[in-house]
């Protein structure tokens, strides 16, 4: 039987047929090893450690947003849920003196509860309407925080959100130290990415992509689409909240403006540039774009323009994003060999 050449779209979204798993695993291991060795590699340069920490935040944020994307949804509520995690942890510390180790899980629980509650109505909407509805959710969260200024400090924000410490007698770590915080951020970010990788790699991931591909069929093979959407969305929001708490204790200052629409937009840009079909996409996208953004800082007024040019160029010249590069190289090599 002759099989016809597939459409370009089907080839670009090769969800069924990604890179060989072994190669994938080596790439992940190499990345993680590099991450661990990074502080030494940059000879403990404080500023470059800061860049590393920023990358960890962005990776966690983009990866968790990508988890929602695997359900076929683009959520702009992400910055809002990040704010819930950040504010919960920050306020528990500054008002009650509870450390981040309590504040972060509580923030995650609160964000999870909020995500479940809001997604019951939210999941009625689809595609670009969902996008706008989730955007509304994010804006309302941000502005509600600003509105209740007695509790949250309003636009003034929250100051002195100290980094946590560990005091176990012989082992004492103060995360105010940049290296310590770097490893904290990297470990939490790695856990988040690992969780998302596992979710995506398991049947849950298959369910997500089924819903994303064809909601109607997914429903008619017995998948409870609504339930899985709510669960997936909630998990992603919990991760966003954890990232938010981590962000708050590193920045030591947050205000509603820290969680405006651009936070969500940049996470989305990271995903698009990195690639949409594997969790490697958001990871690579967040890493490379954060580095580029930091580098462009010195170009002043041209920073944003150059960022825009890079964004458009990637979308047009590298459809499928950075994650397709290994496949392209492999195909190119194979092409050369066979010819």
């Amino acid at each position, binding site marked *: 039987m002759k099989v016809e050449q597939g459409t370009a779209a089907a080839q670009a979204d090769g969800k069924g047929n990604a890179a060989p798993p072994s190669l994938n695993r080596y790439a992940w291991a190499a990345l993680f090893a590099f991450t661990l060795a990074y502080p030494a590699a940059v000879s403990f340069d404080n500023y470059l450690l800061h860049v590393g920490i920023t990358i960890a935040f962005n990776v966690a944020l983009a990866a968790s947003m990508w988890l929602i994307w695997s359900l076929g949804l683009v959520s702009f509520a992400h910055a809002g849920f990040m704010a819930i995690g950040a504010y919960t942890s920050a306020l528990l510390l500054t008002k009650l003196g509870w450390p981040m180790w309590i504040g972060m899980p509580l923030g995650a629980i609160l964000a999870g509860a909020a995500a479940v509650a809001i997604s019951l109505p939210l999941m009625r909407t689809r595609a670009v309407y969902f996008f706008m509805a989730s955007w509304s959710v994010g804006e309302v969260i941000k502005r509600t925080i600003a509105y209740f200024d007695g509790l949250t400090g309003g636009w003034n924000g929250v100051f002195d959100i100290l980094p946590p410490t560990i005091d176990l007698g012989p082992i004492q770590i103060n995360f105010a130290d940049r290296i310590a915080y770097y490893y904290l951020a990297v470990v939490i970010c790695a856990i988040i990415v690992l969780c998302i990788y596992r979710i995506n790699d398991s049947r849950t991931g298959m369910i997500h992509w089924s819903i994303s591909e064809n909601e109607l069929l997914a429903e*008619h093979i*017995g998948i409870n689409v609504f339930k899985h959407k709510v669960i997936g969305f909630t998990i992603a929001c919990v991760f966003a909240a954890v990232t938010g708490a981590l962000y708050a204790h590193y920045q030591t200052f947050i205000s509603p403006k820290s969680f405006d629409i651009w936070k969500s937009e940049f996470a989305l840009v990271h995903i698009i540039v990195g690639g949409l079909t594997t969790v490697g996409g958001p990871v690579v996208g967040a890493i490379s774009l954060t580095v580029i953004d930091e580098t462009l800082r010195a170009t002043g007024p041209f920073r944003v323009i150059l960022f825009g040019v890079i964004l458009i160029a990637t979308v047009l010249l590298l459809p499928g994003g950075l994650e397709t590069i290994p496949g392209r190289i492999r195909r190119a090599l194979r092409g050369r060999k066979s010819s």
Partner: protein
Amino acid sequence: MHLLETRNLTVRFGGVTAIDNLSLTVGEGEIRGLIGPNGAGKTTFFNAVSGRYPSSGEIRVRDHVVSGLKPNEIVAQGLARTFQHVTLFKSFSVLKNVMAGCHLRSGYSFWGALLGTPRTRQNEADNERRAREILDFVGLGGLADETAANLPHGLQRAVGIAVALASEPQMLMLDEPCAGMNTAETRSMSDLIRRIRGNGTSIILIEHDMKVIMGICDQITVLNFGTKIAEGSPEEILRNTAVHKAYLGSAADAS
């Protein structure tokens, strides 16, 4: 006890009544044909039974009332369906399509999947084996790793049926499985339908190709304007004047 029974099933869209007081029973192991001119309400009937459209009246599966259940719950009751337009997870491989179709029989649990427990791994191995069996059964064994979108139309339909079969239904509702197929493809599709029935699965079939209908159906129900105008064996239907009248009114549809 009937496998599927509808009592006074009615579906309305705004002011239009698409299905009007339809009562129907399908027995076990039966192949039931559902025919009628365009707009007679055949696909609407499928949509109502499979839980996609809200309806009034009663739908029973093995005497359990399933009216008002959602599509995924209906599938869990043993009623699977295919769609008139090829409906697949197009970017998935064929195998993955069918494995996704195994959802209800996959022993899936969120935590098991996340942690990759031995049991989950065993389950997934079973799923893959079962999916390959189903693919072999429908004759797609050699194409398991193709991307679904890359297959020709006729094979995509077969994949659609394989996906529906993966939920191990007691009854399969096929919506025009032979649409757009040539004679040879139609013949192998008819053959496949018979073999599915041979495994003990009942079938309701919407089809415009009268040769298929007359060739494989045990019983045929004829709908027009949402109501049942005739029911019986192929021979009886061929003799029925009301059916001829309905089809003469829109001759083009009967081709």
